[in-house]
């Protein structure tokens, strides 16, 4: 069966520090991968979307970046965090090429930038 791992679960970082969140998927090949952010009381905002290795689409201009060095690995990074980067970050995957695709989410990372 497929599983998605996301870590860390909680992170407290000072403003201006770098960020690296990692997500891996097991049990499937060539998945679509996504990074979402959920601010308190807000909906899910799509940040990045990837259909394959080194194929990343950015949905929102910001100081975050994403990389996909391996088929089932998706990394969210920042060189310098801002206060506004605080939020709940979720990695998700879906079946490549499937219509009516449903998303499978990781357990999330609660990021607090202080």
């Amino acid at each position, binding site marked *: 069966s497929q599983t998605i791992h*996301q870590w860390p679960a909680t992170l407290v970082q000072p403003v201006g520090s770098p960020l690296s969140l990692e997500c891996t998927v097991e049990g499937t090949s060539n998945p679509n991968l*996504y990074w979402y952010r959920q601010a308190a*009381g*807000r*909906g*899910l905002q*799509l940040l990045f*979307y990837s*259909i394959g290795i080194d194929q990343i*689409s950015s*949905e929102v201009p910001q100081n975050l970046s994403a990389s996909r060095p391996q088929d089932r690995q998706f990394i969210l990074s920042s060189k310098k965090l801002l206060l506004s980067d605080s939020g*709940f970050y*979720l990695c*998700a995957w879906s079946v490549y090429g499937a*219509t*009516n*695709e*449903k*998303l*499978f*989410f*990781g*357990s*999330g990372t*609660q990021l607090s930038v202080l």
Partner: protein
Amino acid sequence: SQKIEQNSEALNIQEGKTATLTCNYTNYSPAYLQWYRQDPGRGPVFLLLIRENEKEKRKERLKVTFDTTLKQSLFHITASQPADSATYLCALPPNFGNEKLTFGTGTRLTIIP
């Protein structure tokens, strides 16, 4: 631009009653609509998908309707239980391009014993 609205941020329902949540959309002609459940501090979990040519879909105590004329989906939980308390999100694909879902802000449902 496309817009999704879930009618209320929070809904309190007495245990045993039917909970009804609403998802409205504008400037969309989605081929399908999905509903997810999200517990505090966790990622959303897929519940149901309903296609544009389906008026109703059921799964155990859950029922979803999809009215493309009204541009609305209703999500019902019958015989509600405290364990049903969670935030429920609707999600739709864009009209064009890659199928990346857009989510509503969710309705926080509390079932009162």
